[in-house]
């Protein structure tokens, strides 16, 4: 296995009394698309800026490519950044913006020209070379920011919420484009985002952060399918929670008493974050089914529909389980012939023990 391109160990960052980052330990692999995901104020941008060299660490160490970055200013680090505001130089044309870093490195004019043209090509801005930067749209500005950073062939490209300023359609287009670019250039990308969907679709691995700490680092599938805590589970996609109490554990089996569902036997693997302190059971809305006619399921429970949200391809139901206050969300695909239930209707909800997660 190759060395990690970025190694963070025991990293702390204080602003006066406020601890923005606490004990961050993280390895980012060479060539992967890595995302830092979390709600605003969780420290993800601070962490990215610390890697770029714009924030000094209070303690801990940061290595890039095996070298300690202590005392190395941002302009000497093998990283480049795409800023949230894109930070396009307003007094320069597109080509001058892209050439900025190459000129800082005092490369020969011919080489600068060739590399700028190549980078502008790569991000699909052919013919915009001489365009003044204030005459660019949001998407074009982002492409300039990308070209300006990638033209320097950094070891790591840092992206600070690069898609948050774009409208939905353009954002989705840029998501796949960023992914394509990353595969083409083979550079490690570190993306900061608060949009879990964006992180899931783009990343090889994701670090979920809360309150300056990393809660879980995993691939999108594992993060969604096996979140280690209730907080992560709630942040990534939708999750229904039911109170639970562990009664006994023996070998590979755990006996639990679950609100509304009764006494169950789960596998130890379903306690994704370990058995200690588990007090709830989580189940994704798509793992529940509203049974119609003669349909059956491994387990069934009687519920009452309290809210219906129709999305065209999907219908989101809020149903009330017996002996539980909060509604449970069930999502159903609107396949041919499936009837959309109305508020107040009785429903049989099908579920299976294997789709439950035991969480703390």
């Amino acid at each position, binding site marked *: 296995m190759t060395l990690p391109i970025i190694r963070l160990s025991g990293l702390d960052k204080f602003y006066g009394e406020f601890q923005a980052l606490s004990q961050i330990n993280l390895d980012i692999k060479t060539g992967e698309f890595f995302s830092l995901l979390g709600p605003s104020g969780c420290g993800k941008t601070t962490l990215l800026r610390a890697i*770029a*060299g714009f924030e000094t660490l209070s303690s801990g160490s940061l290595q890039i490519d095996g070298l300690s970055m202590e005392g190395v200013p941002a302009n000497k680090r093998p990283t480049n*950044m795409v800023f949230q*505001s894109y*930070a396009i130089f307003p*007094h320069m044309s597109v080509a001058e913006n892209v050439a*900025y870093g190459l000129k*800082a490195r005092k490369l020969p004019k011919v080489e600068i020209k060739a590399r700028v043209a190549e980078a502008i090509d790569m991000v699909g801005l052919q013919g915009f070379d001489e365009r003044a930067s*204030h005459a660019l749209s949001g998407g074009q500005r982002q492409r300039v920011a990308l070209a300006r*950073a990638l033209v320097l062939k950094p070891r790591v490209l840092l992206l600070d919420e690069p898609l948050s300023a774009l409208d939905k359609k353009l954002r989705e287009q840029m998501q796949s484009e960023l992914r394509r670019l990353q595969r083409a250039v083979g550079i490690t990308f570190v993306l900061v985002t608060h949009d879990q969907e964006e992180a899931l679709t783009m990343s090889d691995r994701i670090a979920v952060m809360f309150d300056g700490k990393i809660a879980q680092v995993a691939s999108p599938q594992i993060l969604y399918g096996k979140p280690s805590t209730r907080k992560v589970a709630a942040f990534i996609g939708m999750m229904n929670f039911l109170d639970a109490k562990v009664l006994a554990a023996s070998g590979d089996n755990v006996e639990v008493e679950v609100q509304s569902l009764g006494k169950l036997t789960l596998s130890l693997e379903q306690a994704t974050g370990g058995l200690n302190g588990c007090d709830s059971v989580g189940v994704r809305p798509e793992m529940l089914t509203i049974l119609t006619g003669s349909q059956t399921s491994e387990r069934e429970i009687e519920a009452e529909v309290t809210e219906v949200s129709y999305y065209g391809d999907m219908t989101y139901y809020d149903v009330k389980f017996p002996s539980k206050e909060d509604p449970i969300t069930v999502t159903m695909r609107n396949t041919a012939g499936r009837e959309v239930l109305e508020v107040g209707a009785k429903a049989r909800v099908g579920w299976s023990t294997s789709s439950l997660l035991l969480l703390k």
Partner: protein
Amino acid sequence: MVGFQKWRRSESAQGLFLISPTLCFALLLLAVPLVMVAALSFWTQDYLTLDRTFTTANYVTAWTEPMYQYLMARSLKISIFVTVATVFLAYPVAYFISFHVAPKRKAMWIFLITIPFWTSYLMRIFLWKVILGYNGVVNGSLMGLGVIEQPLSFILYNQNAVVLTLAHAWVPFAILPIFVALERVDRSLIEAAEDLGDSRLRRFLRVTLPLSMPGVIAATIIVFIPTIGDYVTPRLVGGPNGLMISNMIELQFKKANNAPLGAALAISAMGIVTFFALVFLWMNRKYVRGPS
């Protein structure tokens, strides 16, 4: 009549009514005197009466007489020195306030810079006389310390004193536009320049300075235009070698009793100032771009 009624309710008419007090004031006290001076410059003084036949003789004298050429050149030179000195002194102060003063203290710093205006301009010039004079603060201290035997004479009643006094008077006016321009520089642009590999000095030269140029040019115009026509300062601290074109204009209007020549000199000086102002404006257009 209907047309007038309609016009009266239009936006441009309302705008015109809004500015009309200022407009009347400006017309009466700026435009009218200016037209009078311009007219005067084409007439001839005939002892106590004015000969109102059109002549360009005053302009010929103003532009060819060596003394006037010399005074005009000196005024330009002093005012260029003052402008350069002022902008160079003002930029670091503005930069410091914009980049190194905590945001909540900036207002206080700007307020402190206006303190010199609490005393009248004349008082400040007289204070410079006290400081720079033969028995003044500078000479007294230096002699008391034994650095010099005789009082220095080159520090008052010459062009240096004029430059010094004017620069001191105009620095606050130069700090403000430069400060405003620096405040408008997006800090992430400077970080981007650093991220792309520029050292502190290079990112200042390639990003901060070009983006603050509109402020520098505004400061240049604000200082250059009034100083070229200043006549109190050269009169009080300039001595015989520090006199400027405005002192000559005053002389022509009063003692020399040749108002038309004075008017021609004034209009000529205005023309030169206008020329420079246009050059600065043209330079500014290069830097002022659309919203980013």
